[in-house]
């Protein structure tokens, strides 16, 4: 359960966003600026957190009354190997070192639900983190790194699940890839019968959740999940319905030894923390992503 350190909610003095050109980072910066929150966007092109001197450079940008949101990470599409994990840890190391030099008022670390590994449903924030891949191990290690340098009453850890939106750059298996495949090839290939269930969240909603955490100065751990899981087949069908043309859903045999897994979330903590917040349904969210794509927004 997260706790709100600021009641009533109010804008932080300034928000510094690391990884501000990434998929969720860019959307969040836009959301914060739209709501009038002073935001300093720091993309990796401006500050390479793996470079020597990164900690000092970051510390020089920070002020004591800042809120810092850390998106910076090499996602699995950039590599799933040990070297990628170590580069990610080096980035976190630089941020933690900077925070050692210059404390800030609030830190939000954008982690991942990959920290839960193959934990059986129903997952909530008290489910023990047990990552089964280096990407999840990396996020869990980074969570612990931040917890070692940021006070508990100043640190918020968000663990988003599958995030979708037209500007997604990762092209992971799921609605973003389906939409592109349907547009380009007129078909959506699925493994097996697409029976695996997952939770999908719209990037705009994740950005709004981050805004809420910032204005409430929320601390603790919160899963950025909608609480509704659908199968990949349902996901593909909803994506396909957005097109005027016929889109075929192709079922492809799974590889040998493939295990069907499901993932559902208990979202009570989110509903209690932000009782007015509502997740966009996948039907509406997928439709929005489709409209954005057709409007040339990416994809």
């Amino acid at each position, binding site marked *: 359960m997260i706790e709100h350190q600021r009641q009533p909610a109010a804008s932080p003095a300034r928000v510094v966003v690391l990884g501000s050109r990434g998929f969720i980072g860019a959307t969040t910066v836009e959301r914060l600026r739209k709501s009038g929150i002073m935001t300093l966007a720091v993309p990796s092109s401006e500050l390479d957190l793996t470079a020597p001197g990164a900690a000092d450079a970051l510390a020089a940008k920070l002020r004591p009354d800042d809120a810092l949101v850390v998106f910076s990470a090499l996602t699995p599409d950039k590599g799933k190997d040990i070297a990628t994990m170590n580069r990610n840890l080096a980035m976190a190391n630089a941020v933690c070192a900077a925070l050692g030099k210059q404390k800030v008022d609030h830190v939000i670390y954008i982690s991942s639900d990959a920290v839960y590994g193959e934990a059986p449903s129903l997952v909530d924030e008290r489910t023990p983190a047990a990552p089964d891949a280096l990407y999840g191990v990396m996020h869990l290690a980074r969570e612990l790194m931040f917890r070692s340098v940021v006070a508990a009453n100043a640190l918020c850890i968000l663990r988003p699940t599958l995030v979708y939106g037209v500007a997604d750059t990762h092209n992971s298996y799921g609605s973003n890839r389906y939409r592109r495949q349907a547009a380009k090839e007129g078909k959506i290939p699925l493994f097996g019968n697409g029976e695996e269930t997952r939770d999908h969240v719209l990037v705009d909603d994740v950005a709004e959740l981050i805004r809420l955490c910032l204005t409430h100065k929320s601390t603790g751990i919160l899963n950025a999940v909608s609480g509704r899981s659908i199968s990949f087949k349902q996901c593909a069908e909803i994506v396909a319905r957005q097109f005027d043309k016929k889109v075929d859903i192709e079922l492809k045999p799974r590889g040998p030894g493939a295990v069907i897994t499901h993932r559902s979330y208990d979202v009570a903590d989110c*509903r209690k923390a932000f009782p007015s917040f509502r997740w966009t349904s996948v039907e509406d969210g997928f439709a929005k992503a489709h409209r954005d794509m057709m409007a040339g927004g990416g994809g």
Partner: protein
Amino acid sequence: MTLRVGYAGLSHLGICSAVAAADKGCMVVGYDPDTRIVEGLKGGDMTVVEPDLDDLARRCKERLSYTDTVADLGACDLVYVARDVPTDDYGGSDLRPIDALIDQVAPVMKPGAHLIVLCQVPPGFTRARRRPGLSLFYQVETLIFGRAVERATKPERFMVGAADGETPLPASLADFLGRFGCPILVMRYESAELCKIAINVCLVASVGVANTLADLSERIGADWSEIVPALRLDARIGPKAYIQPGLGIAGGNLERDLATVCRLADETGADAGIVRAQMANNKRRADWVLHRLHEHLPGSGATIGVLGLAYKENTHSTKNSPSLALIRHLTPHALRVHDPVVKAEAMLHPRLVQVEKPLQVCDGADALAIMTPWPDYRTLPVEELGFRLKGRLVVDPFAVLDRKAAKAAKLDHWVLGAPRH
């Protein structure tokens, strides 16, 4: 000779037990160091709400006396330490008040009298309190909130813990317990202390099974209420099995026993994984109503009627009450609440109105949540209720309203274990 029985600690357990002893013809002295409680009881204020308690106390008043002077227990043949053990939100027990009572009572008891711990104490407690010259026993209490008088006057059996579990009970204790006409099981202190916990853990396990399968029923289109009768007719499960789904355990006692099992298991290396799973399941169940409201109401600005604040029917207790927990998370909405005995505290919610009559919670409300299955709520006219509600959503976990009547009134009626629609 008239048997004199004392009760030290006049909380829920002590009061109900004292009245039951008087009902069995004993001369009863109720002692509590809190003068206000004693004066209240002397004036007829039983301080707790239980069916039949006031009437029974009135009928037995010639044999009931209350005092704040511990020496008044000196004439008793048996003295029960019967104060409820305070628990925190995590099921932890505060045993200091029990020790304080034992320390007060033991020195004033007459030779040949026996001290019986009736409180909910962890295994090992009683043996550690043995002292020279004190005849000490532990007795399992089986009080159920809302049925305390019935349970105290007509127990199914007594479970008594003694130092060795083999020596016969002393005559005065055997005489007293024999008046209730039920089996008396004597065992070691530790067995009796764990027996109390075992009963509760078994009940929690049953409810946990019901909750898990009711949840599954909702998701796959089954109806748990259709399954329950079949289970009750199975002799291995039984007609009185705890298989009604609920909103998680509350009241404090069951939570305490689960926490005790986990602590003892951790200390001794036993596996309490299944008990921890029950605890997690129970925490989740408390949010069932919140989820239904959240899924069907806008983010803010709705008016919600709430029937019931007590943690269950026929009690004034709100310890871990699902209703109060729900209300704390409905801050974006206005609330109209009712409870026959519990008064809502102003701190609970910024926009809460407590009404006098149950149906008044429906007036202009977008949704209704029936959080405590008080008997009076079962007779509410469903058609009028639907007429007074502005919206159609009725979240009724315990099926207090007749499901057919709710359907006829075109209510969007949500019940634990019923298929989601």
